[in-house]
């Protein structure tokens, strides 16, 4: 390290200074570290001072010398620079120095904070000055430019002031340290220097005070010192100008080191954002929730969203959303909540009725068990991403909590046959079921929703019996889920057979309001026409996304048949996402089926056979069927349509949209990803937004 210091030191002797002194030689990790916090600061300040001087040189050609004192940061009023016009004498400089200091001190007094901080800085400056003086004098002689940098003047000035304060016993010690300091490689606050531990007068923190202690000065820690400096500098307009100049020409911003709670030093890039500051404050004072005042449920929910978006929902901030009076706990990102944090939910909010945890990857069987046992009021459960929970754990959970559950939604979990069987057995009151993207969910599980065929009864009973292996309890015979109104089995990972689906829909279809069979690639026309069609009286939301085995004719027939029954008041939401094979006729039939009720239509990628005629059906251009009275409502199209997804339906053009918009007065959102014909001139109106237009991308 010494080698490097010397290298740097010699480099800095170059009177031109500045960018020329790049560090040469090997870098140890320590060197880099020092460079980061120590040396770089020095260079930065020096460069800034030089820049300030260079800028001031526009008024008068003053070149800053390399002997610039380290302590002279940007706050130094360059008034001293400008005032140095021509006056070369050290006395004048000294007088000016004293004047400056007095000014600073006076300003400090005004700002109400003592002068000791100033004095501390002065002291430090003085230390610099002693050593700086001999070198700068050489430099000054070497330089041809007139006027002198602050450093030289101050060095000389300080040199004169110094002996007054020095005590003999310490002088040598300090001098040698100053020499060490003078080597530009070393940070002023290097541990080698030594000093005394003092307590700050303002904040009572202990800090290491370098150098001498002047009895008459107030003793302030570096943080308080800096605040005072800043406060003092706000008084001086000139310094502001210099800062503006300096900052515009300064070297690239160095990152500040921040000590985190772990004691690790963390590099902080720039200023913390207001969101960061708020979250930090909240996290620190989570226990004093009362001091936050009354928060409405919506605000709390919004807060939770924000905190989860910033990925800072963890043990400390969790407390904000729990409490004995909370009936609903909805957390959007539980990645940082470990097992014990999740179990805290049970401890702190035992009365929850709604529990929704997304990204709860760390939730395991034990936690689920705690939920089942501890949350006696649990009625609605939504767990996404609980992949550690396996089949048996679910079954156990249903045994405990099943009878209470009214809504159960799970995604990406180990939900399999045993769990399904337990669900069927225990959750009689279930109204809403969603099992989506679970790798163990197989055709048998699907089959359990319908009455078991005699030959498979035993097989279905098997998982349940296995679970009850310790007790010889009679396995409850199958019962249908009589209250089920909403069934979502979207995107299963294993193949689902059409026959099973047909059976299920025959059993449950009539009671369902919401049905989502996205990703059931194998369900075919029979399912639709023989299974769903007769059993969809109450169906309001239907999703047959990716059901590519259903032909367009069958789809048309399904809607056409249903139109008589529904009289236009059919579905509220329909998704035919990625059903590539559908034709115009399907859309016409859809309009006839649900024109008066349809609010949301998803035709993403229904592109192969779709033409403008099909889309115009939405605008009232439905082709009348031969011999049939065209209902007047149909002619108008879908007036209640609010959002439509026409992504990748390449026949969508501006003119089609115009007609559709005319007919659909309530349309708010139109998704048109991948529609090259939709241009910037597509018709708009207040309240309508296009998502995914090619011209909207930056």
């Amino acid at each position: 390290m010494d080698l490097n210091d010397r290298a740097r030191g010699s480099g800095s002797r170059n009177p031109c200074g500045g960018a020329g002194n790049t560090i040469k030689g090997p870098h140890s990790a320590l060197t880099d570290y020092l460079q980061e916090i120590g040396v770089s600061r020095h260079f930065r300040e020096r460069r800034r001072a030089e820049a300030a001087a260079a800028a001031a040189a526009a008024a008068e050609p003053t070149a800053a010398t390399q002997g610039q004192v380290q302590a002279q940061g940007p706050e130094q009023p360059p008034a001293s620079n400008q005032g140095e016009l021509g006056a070369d004498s050290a006395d004048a400089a000294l007088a000016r120095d004293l004047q400056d200091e007095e000014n600073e001190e006076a300003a400090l007094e005004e700002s109400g904070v003592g002068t000791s901080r100033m004095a501390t800085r002065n002291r430090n400056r003085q230390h610099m000055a002693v050593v700086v003086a001999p070198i700068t004098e050489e430099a000054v002689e070497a330089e041809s430019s007139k006027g002198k940098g602050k450093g030289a003047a101050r060095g000389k000035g300080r040199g004169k002031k110094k002996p007054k304060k020095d005590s003999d016993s310490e002088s040598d010690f300090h001098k040698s340290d100053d020499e060490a300091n003078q080597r530009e490689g070393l940070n002023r606050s290097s541990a080698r220097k030594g000093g005394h531990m003092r307590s700050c007068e303002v904040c009572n923190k202990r800090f290491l005070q370098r150098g001498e202690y002047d009895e008459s000065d107030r003793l302030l820690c570096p943080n308080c010192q800096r605040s005072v400096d800043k406060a003092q500098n706000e008084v001086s307009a000139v310094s502001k100008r210099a800062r503006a100049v300096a900052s515009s020409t300064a070297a690239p911003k160095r990152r500040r080191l921040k000590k985190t709670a772990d004691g690790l030093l963390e590099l902080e890039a720039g200023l913390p954002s207001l969101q960061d500051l708020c979250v930090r404050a909240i996290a620190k004072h989570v226990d004093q929730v009362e001091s936050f005042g009354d928060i409405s449920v919506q605000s709390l929910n919004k807060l939770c969203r924000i905190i989860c978006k910033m990925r800072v929902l963890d043990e400390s901030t969790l407390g904000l959303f729990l409490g004995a009076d909370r009936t609903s706990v909805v957390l959007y990102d539980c990645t940082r909540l470990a097992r014990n944090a999740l179990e805290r939910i049970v401890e702190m909010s035992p009365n929850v009725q709604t529990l929704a945890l997304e990204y709860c990857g760390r939730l395991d069987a034990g936690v689920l068990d705690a939920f089942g046992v501890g949350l006696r009021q649990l009625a609605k459960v939504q767990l996404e991403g609980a992949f550690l929970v396996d089949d048996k754990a679910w079954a156990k959970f249903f045994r405990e909590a099943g009878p209470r559950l009214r809504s159960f939604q799970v995604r990406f979990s180990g939900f399999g046959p045993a769990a399904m069987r337990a669900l069927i057995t225990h959750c009689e009151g279930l109204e809403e079921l969603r099992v989506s993207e679970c790798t163990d969910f197989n055709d048998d599980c699907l089959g359990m929703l319908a009455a078991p065929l005699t030959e498979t009864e035993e097989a279905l009973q098997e998982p349940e019996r296995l679970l009850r292996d310790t007790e010889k309890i009679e396995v409850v015979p199958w019962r249908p889920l009589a209250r089920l109104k909403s069934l979502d089995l979207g995107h299963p990972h294993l193949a689902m057979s059409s026959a099973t689906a047909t059976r299920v829909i025959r059993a449950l279809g009539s009671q369902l309001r919401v049905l989502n069979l996205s990703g059931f690639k194998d369900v075919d026309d029979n399912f639709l026409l023989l299974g769903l069609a007769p059993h969809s009286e109450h169906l309001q939301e239907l999703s047959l996304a990716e059901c590519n085995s259903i032909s367009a004719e069958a789809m048309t027939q399904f809607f056409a048949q249903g139109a008589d029954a529904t009289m236009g008041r059919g579905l509220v939401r329909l998704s035919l996402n990625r059903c590539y094979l559908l034709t115009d006729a399907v859309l016409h039939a859809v309009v006839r089926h649900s024109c008066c009720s349809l609010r949301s239509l998803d035709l993403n990628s229904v592109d192969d056979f779709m033409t403008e005629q099909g889309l115009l059906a939405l605008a009232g251009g439905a082709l009348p069927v031969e011999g049939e009275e065209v209902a007047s409502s149909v002619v108008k199209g879908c007036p209640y349509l609010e959002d439509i997804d026409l992504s990748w339906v390449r026949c969508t053009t501006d003119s089609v949209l115009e007609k559709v918009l005319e007919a659909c007065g309530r349309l708010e959102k139109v998704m048109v990803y991948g529609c090259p014909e939709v241009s910037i001139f597509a018709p708009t109106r207040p309240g309508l937004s296009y998502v995914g237009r090619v011209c909207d991308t930056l």
Partner: protein
Amino acid sequence: MSTTVKLVSGDGFTFVIDKHVAEHSPTIKNMLDVSHGGAFTEALTNEIKFPEIKGKVLEKVCQYLHYKHRYAAEGSTDRVPDFNFDLELSLELLMAADYLDC
């Protein structure tokens, strides 16, 4: 072309600040942007209403924007004072900060 912008809080307080300062919030910047597409009303009138943000909170936000304007460009990051606010404000301030993305 004025260089100040008026921020109106939900409870009727008005804050007039420099445009350069206000544009430290990307949300506000986009509202005042006239470069591409159509200009929003806010850009034409130089007045932005925040019906969901209270006066106290908006005041703190303005202070933060000034704080950011002052210290963000500066090189010596180790002399920047802390930005303080009351704990009672912190929740609402978080929501406002999230909306303004600052």
